[in-house]
């Protein structure tokens, strides 16, 4: 298997030497952050396996699909409508871009004062470190921030890139623009795959993706319980893995995990003491293997019960209507659903503020940690309003700005511990 993987990586043009260093680094980090946890649900075994074999079986599956003439479409953002990709018989893969490892490579070309997510994703391509990127036939970008927008232009010198325009307002005109973008995306995917996206296929794909959304919603609903039956780290990992795993398999695994968690809840069995501070994290996405903030919070005695982010509620909260209809009607439904994602790229974005307050209540949180990647101007500025709103509601807030490196672990620990001391009654 290992030999097969090495051959596959070599065939994909991976820089094997550097890639070895990356994979060898991941093991110990995973052991420290994940396997050191006690009282984990057995259902996490699947996700442990997926991370342990992170560039193995799933890449082989995608390769097999490609060898059979199928296409692989890589994405970086929850705005890219994956239903259309599935409907055309292609496989969408959400790329990770959550490690410092690839950042220095990117900084050889991109400005240093670019957010870690952008640098990490670009570095993966530049350094030929990610077999998912290497396997993909098309990278689909979007315009959710200026840094990404310009990075995609540079990335397109290395691999085919298509960029969808996400509007910055939620007006009627903006919605029309987005509906047009979704329609155009269907044409792009049809052209790439040579397959027609018809009403039946689209409706089937919608159900498929909705099923996974429902499973994740169920998982998050279980986190509302006190004591919480799953750690924030584990729940985050489930969401992260669902970005690139097979949609049907993932739904099945998340469902099995939820069944187990339900028995835990019935037995009032939790992963943290009843009095552990319950935390909602809100802000920038956390891509694999970015577990930094969850790890600090949970080793300091708190438990993360919800993520209001693109690697959290924004990924799965809203469903696409399943009542079918013509391709045009279904595409419109899809467009409308994606416009409900309250990304900080929108102005105004008050719906996100409402979401944070609502989630804080639903998940019975003791405090909110606002997380933004350094140099992410939209989230950093929006945090000002988040702070205002939460202050009015009397919900404690800690604002954290950081990146993927470990340099600031000490400072973050101090601030987080002080925050927990403050909210612990």
């Amino acid at each position, binding site marked *: 298997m290992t030999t097969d993987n090495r051959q596959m990586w070599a065939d994909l043009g991976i820089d094997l030497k550097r890639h070895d260093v990356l994979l060898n680094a991941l093991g110990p980090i995973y052991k420290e952050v994940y396997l050191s946890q006690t009282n984990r649900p057995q259902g996490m075994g699947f996700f442990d396996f997926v991370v342990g074999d992170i560039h193995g079986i799933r890449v082989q599956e995608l390769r097999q699909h490609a060898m059979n003439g199928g296409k692989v479409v890589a994405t970086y953002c929850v705005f890219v409508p994956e239903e259309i990709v599935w409907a055309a018989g292609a496989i969408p893969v959400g790329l990770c871009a959550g490690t410092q490892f690839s950042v220095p490579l990117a900084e050889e070309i991109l400005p240093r004062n670019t957010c870690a997510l952008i640098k990490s994703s670009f570095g993966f391509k530049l350094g030929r470190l990610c077999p998912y990127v290497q396997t993909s036939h098309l990278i689909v970008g979007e315009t959710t921030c200026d840094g990404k927008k310009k990075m995609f232009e540079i990335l397109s010198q290395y691999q085919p890139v298509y960029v969808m325009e996400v509007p910055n307002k939620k007006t009627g005109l903006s919605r029309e623009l987005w509906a047009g973008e979704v329609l155009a995306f269907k044409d792009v995917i049809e052209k790439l795959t040579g397959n027609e996206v018809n009403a039946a296929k689209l409706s089937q794909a919608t159900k498929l993706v909705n099923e996974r959304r429902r499973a994740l919603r169920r998982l998050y609903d279980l986190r509302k319980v006190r004591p919480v039956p799953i750690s924030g780290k584990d729940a985050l990992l489930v969401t992260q893995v669902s970005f690139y795993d097979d949609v049907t398999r993932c739904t099945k695994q998340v469902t099995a995990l939820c069944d187990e968690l339900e028995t835990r809840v019935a037995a009032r069995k939790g992963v943290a003491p009843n009095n552990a501070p319950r935390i909602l994290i809100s802000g920038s996405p956390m891509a694999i293997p970015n577990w930094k903030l969850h790890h600090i919070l949970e080793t300091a005695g708190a438990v993360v019960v919800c993520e209001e982010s693109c690697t959290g509620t924004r990924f799965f909260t809203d469903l696409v209507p399943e009542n079918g209809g013509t391709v045009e009607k279904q595409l419109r439904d899809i467009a409308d659903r994606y416009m409900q994602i309250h990304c900080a790229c929108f102005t105004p974005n008050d719906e996100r503020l409402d979401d944070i307050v609502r989630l804080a209540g639903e998940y019975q949180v003791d405090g909110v940690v606002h997380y933004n990647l350094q140099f992410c101007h939209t989230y950093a500025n929006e945090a000002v309003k988040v702070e205002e709103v939460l202050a009015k509601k009397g919900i404690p807030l800690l604002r954290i700005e*950081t990146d993927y490196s470990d340099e600031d672990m000490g400072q973050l620990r101090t601030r987080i511990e002080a925050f927990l001391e403050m909210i612990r009654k």
Partner: protein
Amino acid sequence: MICAGLDVGSRTIKLVIFDDGIRDSLVLETGPNPLWRCQEILSGRSYERLVVTGYGRHLVASVLGAEVVSEIKAYAIGARHLYADCRTVIDIGGQDSKAILLSNTGGMQKFEMNDRCAAGTGKFLEVMADTLEINIRDLGDLALSTSKVVQINSLCTVFAESEVVSLIARGEESSAIALALHEAVATRIVGMLRRVGIKERVIFAGGGALNSCLCQLLGEKLGVELAVPSQPQIVGALGAALLAKQGDGQNYKVVHKSDRLHLNRKEDK
């Protein structure tokens, strides 16, 4: 009961021994091995409980078997002990600056702390003092000796240093440059304070409070009179010692004196 508070900072380690009042205190350079330094400091001293705070708290507490508290809470408690009416604490330390707002009963309400960079910390002034070839202890007085205004725009230690070099090359006097550096730090700290909200009385603690120019500039900019403890550096260690004293054996584990202090040093390596 005799209790000890240890504040393991990035630049200095502070110890307070407390029973009915501060019985003993000291401030020593942290050096390259904070654990050894702490063991040296505690060796031969008797106390019944120990709480450790500061940047090195986890390292030291895990070996000494003590409880930990964040320096933010430790400073809040220490300041409140010294000034019963304290509502705002400013702490400028070696690598961190903090602004802490307390409720009228002394609980932490809000705090701000600098991000990862050294801007607005003692380290920033230390690096700049080096560039000016001036002892850090004299930097504040030097700055106060002039009224000439020059501007330092950057608060990034790296960029500010090159700005300082340019100002030197332009023939500006060290005193004017020093004043500009203090202005930059004070402006940054005032920003943090405004974010937490300022309520009197305001206590200025940490090593930064030893700097005469920072005391003056912060007072002027805030328009309030700052109270500076006679030993501003030990406020965190004092807070830790007070927590040790309050500990009922539940929140803060009882550590018997010198139990695990004399470790074989070979093991540490």
